[in-house]
């Protein structure tokens, strides 16, 4: 969520990286979805195509990490760190609670990649928390 008009060089690099990995994710996810319908694929092929979307999402996490490392504006860096911490807390807490509920057969099974989605929702919540507390959304 980029809300500041003027972007630092680190923010521009972050945007380019996120766009790249998001584009690759869409392509690899479409490929993986199409290929999983084929039953006669080898384990190696299915594994390879299943890994690709996950690696692309990992690339977005890497881009956020690089943003924190490369950003020279300490206030903006702090906002991003706060966002990431709120996102991590939400995702980890959600996964833990859901995991135990799932183990007790109270809730249905959820594929693990959904916790990354929860993490990104947490990133947006973190931006809103930043806006309320510091008057600025942050960068990620």
């Amino acid at each position, binding site marked *: 969520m980029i809300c500041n008009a003027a972007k630092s060089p680190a923010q521009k690099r972050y945007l380019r990286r996120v766009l790249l990995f998001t584009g690759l994710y869409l392509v690899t996810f479409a490929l993986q979805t199409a290929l999983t319908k084929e039953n006669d694929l080898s384990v190696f092929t299915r594994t390879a195509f299943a890994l690709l979307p996950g690696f692309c999402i990992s690339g977005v996490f890497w881009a956020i990490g690089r943003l924190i490392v490369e950003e020279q504006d300490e*206030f903006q860096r702090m906002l991003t760190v706060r966002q990431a911490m709120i996102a991590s807390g939400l995702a980890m807490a959600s996964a833990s609670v859901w995991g135990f509920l799932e183990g007790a057969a109270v809730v249905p099974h959820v594929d693990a990649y959904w916790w990354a989605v929860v993490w990104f929702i947490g990133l947006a919540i973190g931006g809103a928390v930043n806006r309320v507390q510091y008057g*600025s959304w942050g960068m990620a």
Partner: protein
Amino acid sequence: MKNRLKVLRAERGWSQQDLAQRLEVSRQSVNAIETGKYDPSLPLAFRIADLFDMAIEEIFLRGE
């Protein structure tokens, strides 16, 4: 921490954006410091003090 940044900036006729460019930070950073929502690190405080040609304690005041 209270500070006199807004007054010092106004005395020089600078906007928040002007000050941000001089300090090489975002306008949001200047706003957060001026309103006391964010206390700058010591290196940034020194940069601010150098820019106004003052001591840090003449800009940033003790207390809440």
